[in-house]
């Protein structure tokens, strides 16, 4: 298997996820919503797994959610992540539909203080990797635990 030379950066031209990365570049978090049943459908593989429709509208969401789970990654499993460890890779359930779980990074946090179901909000940060040309703006999340209204 040959990987693109900019692996593990995402391919922002790949049609199924192009709108996700284009929205991130604008500072927005977007998820496809089924035109037939109005449900958010993730991952965007072209067919609604609830009703079978193939018509979707990419919809900007608030960027609020809950930290569903995470791992503090201390070993660089691939050399491109050597400069990143330790980092927090996590899964965030979005406020609009907790069944939609975004794989992401949790940033600006003390990993030891993280708790499941903590409210989080989106921030946009560049993905850069050791030895890889270029960068891509990506939605990441920060805990908002100490804010009185959860935002």
């Amino acid at each position: 298997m040959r990987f693109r030379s900019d692996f593990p950066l995402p391919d922002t031209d790949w049609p199924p996820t192009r709108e996700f990365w284009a929205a991130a570049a604008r500072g927005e978090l977007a998820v496809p919503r089924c035109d037939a049943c109005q449900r958010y459908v993730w991952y965007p593989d072209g067919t609604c797994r609830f009703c079978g429709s193939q018509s979707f509208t990419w919809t900007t969401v608030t960027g609020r959610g809950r930290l569903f789970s995470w791992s503090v990654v201390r070993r660089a499993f691939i050399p491109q992540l050597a400069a990143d460890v330790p980092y927090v890779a996590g899964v965030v359930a979005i406020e609009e539909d907790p069944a939609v779980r975004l794989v992401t990074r949790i940033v600006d946090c003390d990993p030891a203080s993280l708790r499941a179901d903590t409210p989080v909000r989106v921030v946009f940060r560049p993905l850069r990797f050791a030895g890889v040309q270029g960068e891509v703006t990506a939605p990441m999340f920060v805990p908002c635990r100490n804010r009185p209204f959860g935002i």
Partner: protein
Amino acid sequence: MAADWGFPSELEDVAGEVAIAGVGEADHTKASGRTTKEIGAQAIERALADAGLTPRDVDGIMYTPFDGQQFGADDYRAHFGTTHEMWVSTAGGGMVWAGSAPHEAALAIRTGRARTVVNVFSVAWATQRADMVGGPGEVHASELFKQNLEVPFGWFPQPVYFATIARRHMHEYGTTSAQLGAIAVACRRHANLTPAAVLHDKPLTLEQYLASPAICDPFRKEDCCLISDGGGAYVMTSVERARDLRPPVVQVAGVGVGNSRTRVYWSQQGDFTATPQVFAAPAACRMAGIVPADVDVLACYDPFTIVSLMQIEDMGFCAKGEGGRFVEGTALHFDGGRLPYNTHGGMLSHAYVLGIAHVVEIVRQLRGEAAAQVKDAEIGVYGGYTGPQASTLVLRRR
């Protein structure tokens, strides 16, 4: 309420039709320089010798096409110098298929397409590791949704997925690191008793486990499977014919397969801390006419400690969420534990051959030939897993 995030496969009843009549393992080693096919050939030679069969007696072969390197029918003819046609199925190999292959073989034998079928699986991943993006992780990095929505965030490879699942299991059910450690310690103890195990000479105590640093929190390296070269094979034929062969008869009593609707996308599975064993195990037990409490020895595909814990729960050996408390102490040990588990050491401590050696071990247990032998084992179960699917194979001595 029945879980709706997955479903069982509809399988024809094959209870009591076929037996596993021969088992063999290739040498399990660190990087050995051998090819996948050479390792597969050695496993088949040993399985045939165990059954007392000659290469000409086998007229069916099962393997998986997944890495393009597995030992198939052409390899069989070239290696063993045979010329006869063989029934071929690519629904064999390790992982979930190490458990479901006997169902496919039973249908082939029932309809006369084959009389005696070998299922084989081997890997040379320790040897090949240097060429890959992260060993077995390459398969995942090649999947385009993962490549574009998971890998860029560093949610990759498999240890990171399952550490995340373990963290959520801890949150929902109060599972602790010491409970995950009890699984690693039980498996290591069994490997220490099993001469062919890669970690045969490396003891592990719970204190050592807890003192080991996290590599991807909450996992330590002891929570994660080995990378090794090795393989295994088993030979299936009708129960009637198996009675004429040397080994005691071990029947295929039940097979079940479960499926997750969210396929390889672990992050989206409706129940994040469960496996499709929820759907596979009840079907297999129904076919076999048993309940989980009847099982004398269990072996599950165990890439990570949490995958053992979830399958033990999902197969019904305890209530969901009770797995942590269930596995504590010596509960999984071969000599007096309430559920002797991975009695060869599993993928954590025996060999990373993706479940084929688990089936070999269960057969040996039911024959009374295992290194860490469970007393009077009569019913043994293999739990296979790939993420999108799980399988349950119930074997019975009689």
